[in-house]
């Protein structure tokens, strides 16, 4: 009987772990953070912007270190080629070859869209570690694209965030937020993000293709496609300095 009890307890633990039913909202959010964030990574991505006048594709290479440092260089099309962006903590700098000036993006400029996409500079400036800035609570489980999901409701821990609340559909097995809705304090829906294709790299699952839609903007949304990504590679420290923008 004792053996049976131990067996049942072990079985329950295994089942609970597999289906994640014992996880709290905060633990699920931590898993999402851990899945997304790495010590550093270098990626080449495409931004396919579906505007009212047609589709444009922008290619960029990004170097990211932790949550505070990121450097992006635009590779295509010709008009954007050579434009560079540097994020250092809560500061964002941009350099355009035509003007040869390093300009800090601040204030209302942060709300502008990045290269005409449905993402704003603010989206890139927020702390990507969601557990740092949001309180999570669990809602009734759901499925998205045929995959069982936890539904998390996030509420801002502090004032001044771009999005007061978010709703995440987190894949129960891969801990990827397959769908996300971002809301203003008034409850107005501001952004919808969907992961439409994923890939496995090492032990983590990562989005290959994401769809971003600014709910307040006309147009058919923006697709982000990761062409390649390498985690935990060595990035030279000089890259995260303002002088590297002009190189």
């Amino acid at each position: 009987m004792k053996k049976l009890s131990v067996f049942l307890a072990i079985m329950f633990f295994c089942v609970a772990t597999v289906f994640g039913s014992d996880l709290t909202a905060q633990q699920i959010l931590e898993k999402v953070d851990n899945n997304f964030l790495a010590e550093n990574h270098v990626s080449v991505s495409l931004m396919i912007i579906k505007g009212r006048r047609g589709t444009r594709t922008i290619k960029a290479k990004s170097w990211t270190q932790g949550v505070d440092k990121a450097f992006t260089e635009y590779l295509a099309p010709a008009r954007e080629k050579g434009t560079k962006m540097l994020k250092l903590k809560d500061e964002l700098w941009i350099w355009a070859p035509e003007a040869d000036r390093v300009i800090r993006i601040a204030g209302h400029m942060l709300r502008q869209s990045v290269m005409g996409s449905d993402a704003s500079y603010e989206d890139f400036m927020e702390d990507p570690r969601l557990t740092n800035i949001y309180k999570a609570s669990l809602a009734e489980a759901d499925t998205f694209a045929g995959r069982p999901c936890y539904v998390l409701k996030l509420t801002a821990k502090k004032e001044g965030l771009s999005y007061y609340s978010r709703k995440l559909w987190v894949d129960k097995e891969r801990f990827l937020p397959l769908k996300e809705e971002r809301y203003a304090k008034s409850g107005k829906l501001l952004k919808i993000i969907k992961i439409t294709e994923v890939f496995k790299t090492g032990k983590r699952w990562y989005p290959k293709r994401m769809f971003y839609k600014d709910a307040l903007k006309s147009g058919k949304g923006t697709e982000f496609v990761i062409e390649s990504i390498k985690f935990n590679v060595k990035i030279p420290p000089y890259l995260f300095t303002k002088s590297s923008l002009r190189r």
Partner: protein
Amino acid sequence: MMKFLIKGLLRDKTRSLAYILVVAVGAFLTVFLFSWMQGVMSDIVAANAKFDTGHVKITTRAYADESEQMPIDLSLLGVSKIMQQLQTKYSNMIWVPRIRFGGLIDVPDKTGNTRIQGPAMALAVQLLDPNAPDRKILNLDKALVSGHLPLHRNEILISSDFANKLGLHIGNMVTYIGSTMYGSMSIYNFTVAGTVRFGIIALDRRAVITDIGDARLVLDMPDGASEILGFSKDMQYNDEAMRSLAKAFNAAFSKKGDEFSPKMAALSENHGLKEYLDLADSYGGMFVFVFVLIMSMVLWNSGLINGIRRYGEIGVRLAMGETKGSVYRWMIFESVVTGIIGSIIGTALGLAISYYMQVKGIDVSSMLPNSTMMMSNVMRARVTPTSYYIGFIPGLAASVLGTMFAGVGIYKRQTANLFKELEV
């Protein structure tokens, strides 16, 4: 009888002076207020036409729907072809392409770092061609405060107040930071060629004027324009003609299913300007009505008092055999004479003050520091042909009406009692 009445008017000042003064004041106010409102309204309409709407404006259908937000992503493309068609088909009009866009002007310090930034409202017009019509329409030569009009690419004009705020001088380099028509970040350097002042708060606060060729490059908008403005060659706005032109153009070129097909709108169809035009038209009638009403009541009252004062005179005239109708008619005739004299004095005074205000005006810039309306800082009156006669309408009408109401008492006099009344 005429001689008797004129002598009466000249010798009995209470019979004429009060009437003439009331009529003169009413006529003066009518003429001055009418001319003032004409001036203010026509200034608003002219400023809007020159800087914003033209006499007609062509945009894409999508742009027209969101024009308040200046959505450059919805601008017209293939503008050369449209301009060619317009110049051939509507050669009696002046056509100018323009781009209206916003952004930041960033001023660097000696090391190239940002010293100061300010939000700019940019207007791109054909600047480099010395014969371009927009140089005249926008009165750029007169508006120039310092420096010169742009002669080369990447040269801009900046409003004098904005330049002072940013500490800019002629020849300084500034960086424009904004978005292309596709939403990408756009960063370009310009040189300040000159400073301008248009005398319109909304423009002078943060205007930047650039050549349309430069703007097309900055905004990634080859052969594009956010709008094409049309002006009649005499620069006089004729609402009916412009509305029918817009209707004909839209029937020929605008396609309902295509949000990027061109759409023309007359000045009065933009930003509620129809209400302004209607208001300007109705002001004359409103002033006449109000002053006729007020002055009639005042003159009616004066007539009643006068009737009591002239009780004896009217009684004697009736006793001598003059009919009540005749007395009544002659009193009206008297009021016509005083009305004309009062109207002439009031109109002359009203015209004189209106002319003065047409030349000098009143500077209201300190009262409207944050105005976004396209209107001149200096409000002026405008004397029109109507100003010369509008004062006579309330002047005469009120005078005659007042006397007619007051004079009704004559018909209530009992001839049988006259001698008894006159015994005193």
